[in-house]
């Protein structure tokens, strides 16, 4: 199938991010073994990188890993399944606050709180996903946004448990702390491993039956149901898995920050950033969210240092340009170039033009 046929030219299928057939020709780069080998190599290099950075850079790179993990987790529901979840930050905040509350009030070790937070995030997603995953498109997007905002308000209004709007501090003083603070290097490792786990989940999912099922749902849900995919179960699993990973990262983030505030842990901009990263990198692929997250997080940090006044302005300009020139995402642009030898960015612009 050629690329000209794939875009949604009829304007009807608004939710087909990556309308290519699942058996699109594979370049040698995407063959599974090479992919895993490169991934492992990247992981090793990332560990090695730690020795080459000074403290400030370690924090920056840690943040980049966090976004790699978040973008990959969002990609499970948003990219593979094609459900535009705009409440992802709700699971992030839920994970963070679960960990904070458990460690502060329950004296639970961080290593127990992390999986508990992930489990709670997944369970909560399954609970709200049951009714909400019946909605489609914009309706699902707004409903999940509402869930995240609602969660934030609940957290603000439970001051005995969560400290309310004033925030909550996880005890880190020696002797009182359930788990000593991990230090910059420790969190570097932690976020790196979490990000690697998220990417690995996507890497497995893109090759197995369940993953094909999700992508079938993305392209045509009725057809997917007709060929025997249990649509509700598959969507719930993807949603819960995505939420659990996000909650785990939120949990680690809360411990890293020590003091957390609802405004920060439920910041809508975080959700939008995840979406931006996935779409710019290439939704529905393994490497796309990684590329997008690294590029955006790095560009954001670089601009912040060069243009302290206008960095957000420049970031906005960058996003607008990227969306216009590369609407299918970097990963799919490269794929198209390799397959068809057409490099022109103007072709991209023509693709979705009215």
């Amino acid at each position, binding site marked *: 199938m050629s690329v000209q046929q794939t*875009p*949604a*030219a*009829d*304007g*009807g*299928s*608004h*939710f087909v*991010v990556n309308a290519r057939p699942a058996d699109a020709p594979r370049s040698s780069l995407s063959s599974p073994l090479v992919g895993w080998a490169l991934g492992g190599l990247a992981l090793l290099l990332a560990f090695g990188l730690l020795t080459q950075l000074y403290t400030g850079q370690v924090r920056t790179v840690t943040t980049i890993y966090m976004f790699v993990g978040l973008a990959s987790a969002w990609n499970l529901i*948003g990219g593979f399944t094609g459900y*535009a979840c705009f409440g992802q930050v709700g699971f992030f905040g839920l994970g963070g606050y679960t960990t904070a509350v458990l460690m502060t009030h329950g004296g639970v070790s961080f290593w127990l709180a992390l999986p508990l937070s992930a489990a709670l995030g997944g369970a909560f997603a399954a609970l*709200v996903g049951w009714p*909400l995953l*019946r*909605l*489609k*498109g*914009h*309706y699902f*997007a*707004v*409903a999940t*946004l*509402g*869930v995240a*905002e*609602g969660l934030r*308000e*609940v957290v*603000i*209004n439970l001051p005995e448990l969560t400290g*309310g709007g004033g925030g909550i501090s996880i005890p880190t003083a020696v002797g009182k702390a359930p788990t000593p603070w991990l230090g910059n290097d420790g969190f570097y490792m932690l976020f790196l491993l979490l990000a690697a786990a998220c990417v690995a989940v996507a890497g497995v999912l893109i090759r197995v039956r369940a993953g094909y099922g999700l992508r079938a749902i993305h392209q045509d849900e009725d057809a997917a149901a007709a060929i025997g995919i249990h649509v509700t179960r598959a969507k719930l699993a993807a949603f819960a898995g995505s939420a659990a990973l996000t909650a785990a990262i939120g949990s680690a983030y809360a411990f890293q920050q020590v003091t957390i505030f609802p405004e920060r842990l439920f910041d*809508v*901009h975080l959700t*939008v950033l995840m*979406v*931006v990263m*996935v*779409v*710019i990198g290439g*939704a529905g692929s393994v490497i796309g969210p990684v590329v997008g997250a690294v590029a955006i997080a790095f560009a954001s940090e670089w601009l912040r240092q060069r243009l302290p*006044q*206008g960095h*957000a*302005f420049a*970031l*906005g*300009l*960058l*996003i*607008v340009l990227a*969306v*216009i020139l590369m*609407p299918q995402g970097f990963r799919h642009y490269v794929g198209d170039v390799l397959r068809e030898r057409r490099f022109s960015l103007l072709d991209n*612009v023509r*693709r*979705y*033009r*009215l």
Partner: protein
Amino acid sequence: MFGLIAVGFSLVWGVMHIVNLSHGAFVLLGAYLAWQLNVYFGLDPFLGMLPAGLALFALGYGLQRGLINLVVNAPIFITLLLTFGLELLLVNGLILVFTADYRAIPTSYAAHSLILPGDVRVPFGRLLAAVLAIGVTALLGYVFKRTRTGLAILATGMDRGAARLMGISARHVYALTYGLAAGLAGAAGAAVGAVSTFSPADAGRFTLFSFVAAVLGGLGNTSGALLGGLLLGLVEAWGGQLLPGTLINAVAFGVLVVVLAVRPQGLAGKAFYASRVEV
């Protein structure tokens, strides 16, 4: 007044399927424009609604024609990202030009209250804003029901292919719609400046608000959006007194989610666009 913001948002959503994240930024642009006019020419902010609306209409028309039309056939994420990028551009542009300070447009009468029997006080400014909002929405309803342009917008929203076959230029109509929405936002922004304070950081709040109001009223249903906006305003005002803290927001979002799950066509009830919204 909040209803007016939501009406434009709902319009863009209904006709073009675009979640316009930059909507709040347009409101602020309108507010700052009215503020500038007030500072330099002493123009009354409620009169300033007209130039603010016109300027924003021009800006919106240009944006849609030159930029958003390029990706309008793309999936939801793409248009959403584009408007998010625009929002970043506009809001941070405003911060660069006007700084992040809170501003307000002072008028001699807005703070005075009309005292009704039963010790009810209605500030003139808010009363005027509400009357204007309802008037503009009624005018909009007339335009959509009676004029060729309005009908063309509706037709394009219902079925773009068929509308083009009828000789309607979809590019022009889309730009017109977006311009209209931006113009409404700008006019509402001028009114916001008159009755309360504003700063560039408020953009997100306005966008979120119009989101919720548009959903409550039914997507793409303009009078429903006005209703949703009024309802939301009332609930926030009264609930704020009855419930502790900001718990009312949690209730509002809870209602939103339930409404979506049970009755996606909105409280106003007419399944106007909802019947065809998504495949």
